[in-house]
């Protein structure tokens, strides 16, 4: 069973160096990473997640619009029967926003400075717990 992850950048943020670092770390961990580039709508992200049958959607956002966009991705996934897909987020996200995001269905938030290995391990553990792999 191969773990498939969609790394996506929602909204108007044009900085994807972080997303590329994460994508490369996941590739090195043996994951198949689908990267769709900059400026995606939540609808696009959900459609791609379904079409590619990913296990995880990893959202990266540095613009500050996470409280708005992350929950919308979760909602769009639900609308398309994709509520079993694990959604995680990362970027420049204030600690005080994290409880709200988790309440909205984002499983975990990784802020700047997180070692990439922590993200990889988190995904492996979370998918094992869910019985996916």
């Amino acid at each position, binding site marked *: 069973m191969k773990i498939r992850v969609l790394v996506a950048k929602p909204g108007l943020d044009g900085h994807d160096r972080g997303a590329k670092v994460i994508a490369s770390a996941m590739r090195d961990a043996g994951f*198949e990473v689908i990267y769709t580039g900059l400026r995606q709508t939540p609808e696009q992200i959900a459609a791609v997640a379904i079409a590619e049958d990913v296990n995880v959607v990893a959202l990266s956002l540095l613009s500050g619009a996470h409280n708005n966009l992350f929950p919308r991705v979760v909602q769009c996934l639900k609308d398309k029967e994709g509520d079993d897909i694990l959604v995680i987020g990362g970027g420049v996200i204030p600690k005080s926003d994290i409880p709200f995001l988790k309440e909205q269905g984002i499983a975990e938030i990784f802020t700047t400075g997180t070692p990439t290995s922590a993200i990889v391990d988190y995904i492996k553990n979370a998918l094992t717990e869910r019985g996916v792999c």
Partner: protein
Amino acid sequence: MSVKYVQQDQIYDLVVRMRTGNRRAVSRLITMVENENTLRIDIARYIYPYTGNSYIIGITGPPGSGKSTLTDKLAKLLRKQGKRVGIVAVDPSSPFSGGAILGDRIRMNDLALDDEVFIRSMGTRGHLGGLSESVELTVKIFDACNCDYILVETVGVGQSEVDIMKMADTTLVVLVPGYGDDIQMIKAGILEIGDILVVNKADRDGADQLASMLNMMQQYGESRENSRVRPVLLTSAYENKGIEELLNAILAHREQRQVSDYYHLNRMNHLRAEIMVMLQSELSKRLFERYHFDQELDGIISEMYERRINPYDWVESCVNIV
């Protein structure tokens, strides 16, 4: 056995849902095709009656030649004509970690929300011969979703890619200026599999020279049966130039093939090869399950290595048992 029946029910259910246009079912089936060798034959069996109506276009060429952008533009043109389009985009898996970054969709973002477009990204995963089987079955799944055209995009290096292109009705080889001199071009392999040669990034210097070189090159070599001059087309996919001409060339090739019966002959030959591969893999799977050759080998491999058992005698004895 019961597990197998449960899985068959599950597959049947997915195929029914797929036929009603359920996206989740389509993508689940493709994942099964990719991950679980044992289910391939069941999936293939259920969907086969619904297949055979799509026209398959292979798109190959070196990395960075613009295959994804070209695929995107061709798909959009086909959509304008009201066609339903499937796209299988293959990118390389790492031979070290087994992971992959599948980035072809970056060029196809506008298609993501089109209900008449099916896209799937695939890693090569390094399995022996398995890639072409996975791609082939994915193409069949899109075929069963009533796609008019299916575009299969892969980096054109190596045997498995050539195998994939054998399933295409029309194969495009995409090249760009600066690729190399004419000796690079006449090296065996990539150009031979193309029905249409595309010089992409034609806005760059050297595109015309490359096109004339490709035309000239076709005069080298022995004339073969079925040999014909392959059209050479200039495109600039990023600027959306030359795409209509390219589609016209594809349609002309299609017509030419269908008139000459070569289309059906090619598909029949391909079907035969495909069935043989599946038969071989199923037979060997059953034999291994029954005789446990692999476990036996585990037990004696060190003795073989130390030259106390001759491995070729052992192979012979296994064959005799069967």
